[in-house]
């Protein structure tokens, strides 16, 4: 591993330093090397602070935008997203790393920049069923296929309320009910969990995005 890191470091340094000037940005060798360089810089163990550790209630209150906390279940580091736009009840939240999430009252309906994004979702049945806390609903997910075409996947979901729970997110308490959504589709199945307050706002959730991303944890701050 050490040697591998050294070699990548050397190669990256050589090529990143050497490849300069605007005309080289699109050259295939330098694009490839930049991608690998970014990957290698991660191996060197640059660390940043997990917002779950560093965030305080004062900082959240002082922030100009609404914030949420986001973490992929298969990754250790969390990140914060800020609400930047709203379109017909859908709010778009953006991270420092230029990823975005589009939520309908906390339900993920689209993502961008995660690599295997949810391009859009037919949430017309799921959203009211979550508020009701029971029933069955169809979901249709839009994904980008490997050949730049939209591939649509449908799922049938069973929604049940499990219990009531008081949760605390960075010193704010919320009375919620825990709702489970169990979905089955031809391409596999997944289960989502939502902590929903009486106004129908999802404060905390674990939602499945795509086969490539898996599930993510989201908390409104």
């Amino acid at each position: 591993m050490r040697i591998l890191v050294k070699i990548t470091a050397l190669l990256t340094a050589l090529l990143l330093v050497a490849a300069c000037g605007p005309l080289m940005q699109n050259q295939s060798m330098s694009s490839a090397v930049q991608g690998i360089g970014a990957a290698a810089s991660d191996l060197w163990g640059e660390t940043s602070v997990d917002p779950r550790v560093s965030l305080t209630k004062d900082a959240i209150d002082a922030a100009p935008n609404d914030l949420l906390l986001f973490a992929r279940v298969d990754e250790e580091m969390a990140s914060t997203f800020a609400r930047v736009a709203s379109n017909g009840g859908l709010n778009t939240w953006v991270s420092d790393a230029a990823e975005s999430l589009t939520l309908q009252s906390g339900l993920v309906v689209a993502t961008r920049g995660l690599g295997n994004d949810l391009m859009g979702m037919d949430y017309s049945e799921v959203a009211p069923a979550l508020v009701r806390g029971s029933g069955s609903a169809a979901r249709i997910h839009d994904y980008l296929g490997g050949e730049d075409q939209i591939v649509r996947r449908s799922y049938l979901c069973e929604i049940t309320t499990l219990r009531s729970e008081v949760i605390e997110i960075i010193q704010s308490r919320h009375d919620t009910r825990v709702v489970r959504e169990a979905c089955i589709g031809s391409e596999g199945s997944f289960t989502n969990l939502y902590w929903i307050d009486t106004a129908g706002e999802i404060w905390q959730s674990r939602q499945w995005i795509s086969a490539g991303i898996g599930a993510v944890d989201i908390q409104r701050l």
Partner: protein
Amino acid sequence: MKRPLRLSIAVLTAFCAGQVSADDWRGGYTLYGTSGIIEMPSAFARPDAEVGVTLGGFENQQRLSFSFQVTPRLSGTFRYSRLAELFGPGTADSFDRSFDLQYQVLTEGDFRPAVAVGLRDFLGTGFYSGEYVVASKTLTPRLRATAGLGWGRLATEGGFENPLGFLYDEFKVRPARDVGFGGRPSFDEYFRGDAALFGGVEWQISDSLIASAEYSSDGYVRETGRGVLDRETPFNFGLSYAPQSDYVLSAYALGGHEFGLSATLILDPKERVARSGFEAAPVPVTVRSNNVARIGDRSASLSEMQRVTDAALLEEGIALQGLQVSGRTARVRFSNERYRAEAQALGRVARVLTTTMPPTVEVFVLEPTHAGLPLSTVTIRRSDMEALENQPNAAAISFARSTVSEPSAAVGGNTANVPTGVFAWGIAPYLALQVFDGSNPAREEYGLQGDIRYALQPNLYLEGTARYRVSDDRADARVSASALQPVRSNVAQYGRAGEIGIEDLALHWYERPGRSLYSRVSLGYLEKMFAGASGELLWKPVDSRLALGAELNYVVQRDYDLGFGAQDFPGIDGIYDVVTGHGSVYYDFENSFHGRVDIGRYLAGDWGATFALDREFSNGWRVGAYATLTDVPFDDFGEGSFDKGIRLTIPIDWALGNASRAATDVRLSSLSRDGGARLNVDGRLYETVRGGHAVALQESWGRFWR
């Protein structure tokens, strides 16, 4: 820090996706890199579009094979082999190229076996030449059996009189091979002479282990006869390890004496590392009702709108080249420098405009350009952008509500946005590989490369590349013995280590002479070996799958020192100049194949035609084959008889998941010979234009909202 982590995982696992299960066990790859058992073929086809790269062999022979499942039934293989001591113990190594084709005549049914017909090495010097008919059947989910009848090399063990001899006596005798300079199909040999039976079984022991055994009808007669190989039995045994669906490692016991190894890397061009890419999220659509007071204020001047739009587009990797706002319409001309799919750039521009245009503007007229040429006019309604963002099925609906029409005739940009006299430069190391020639698997050349580009206008610019070579000369590369002017075969004479050479330096001027017409004039040092003038005209309606082109060049062969001069050739008492040009027909078939025919005069003054057929994937992958036939006699052409080869294009964003227009081109098997050689001028019109035309836009419209 999340992004690099993700990317590193993606890069490291780029080729490690998907577990294999018994259900999708597709059989193995042979030592010849084709679908089969060990050395014998099977009738199973690989999944459509699969690319398999196999390196395999044993002590005396190694084969690097590139295999492509062209259609669900047809597969093609290109192979480069090292044959040690081919002419007896102690003789030098030989290197040989060969091509195979296999067609699955019958697919496998419940009771019916799959049946395939194949030609092995049907074009090369014929060293591996053999034909076969083979049947394969899945007996249990974990056991497959194959039996076949072979001819040629595949009948050198246990051969008997050709059963086809009952039809015609001619089939009983395989005529002696007239190799000549190789590279020609030998129709008079196929399925002739003795035939022999072969067969074998593959047994999937566990999800990742496959055992195989075969009876081989290849007797390695020539090798054993010359005493460079021992073979005691026609039976071969193998064990393959395939824990993932994307590689196979195998070990073999061959003929009772030899130990063989092979490794196959399997790529699926249809599947990207990251399907939607890791590039930054787009700017969200700004909906008008909650945004009257921001930048889109009515009182904003045009120059202020231009400034804001220009800055916002630059963030997205898009250069604004013109903005006109009149009444309810905003007309925007831009050049996409980041996204492979023009549809993605269109989506980004339209979203930026929702934030920078005054609320009164309802219609966005977008004009993507390349080399200053407007490629199409795409009209999108702003209210559709607002209504469809993040909605289900948004891509299909937005495509249906947009119109793609002929681009405007005016080239260039709006002077307010496009500063004239833009200078850009870059310096980077370079590596150039010449692979698979007749005497060496790979020659590399490396050094430093400098690029400059001076744009007087977007459609009129000077572009050049100079290289400082660090690696050794390639002067040892074989100089051909063709009877023609050495227009390509002396490429190794060009450029010396430790010196700076001009690769190219030319002025390019693009215009729109009329409706559906595009033109290019290039003047200067057009390529490494030739300088002169090049003119081209292309007719391509924006929504047409057909395009017609014409090109005329007058060029002089350049000096070996890659300076500004022309080379003196004592044999012709002076410099070499030639008028060369082609008429071209391009057709983008609806089944993802792309055909092209060029007819005209080549660099050595020879007349002829080039035929090319490529399978193109809308994610940018291309795999194809081409052949050039000219009036140069095969004997004058030299090795290979005529120019032919296969080529593939792998987009960088496919492999890395980032946003990039860059791609890697690989050309296999093309010997740089002098017959059928074309000028390599940069920026030919067809590839410049077609990415912005209707067919390409529709095929990648899924990226509009990405």
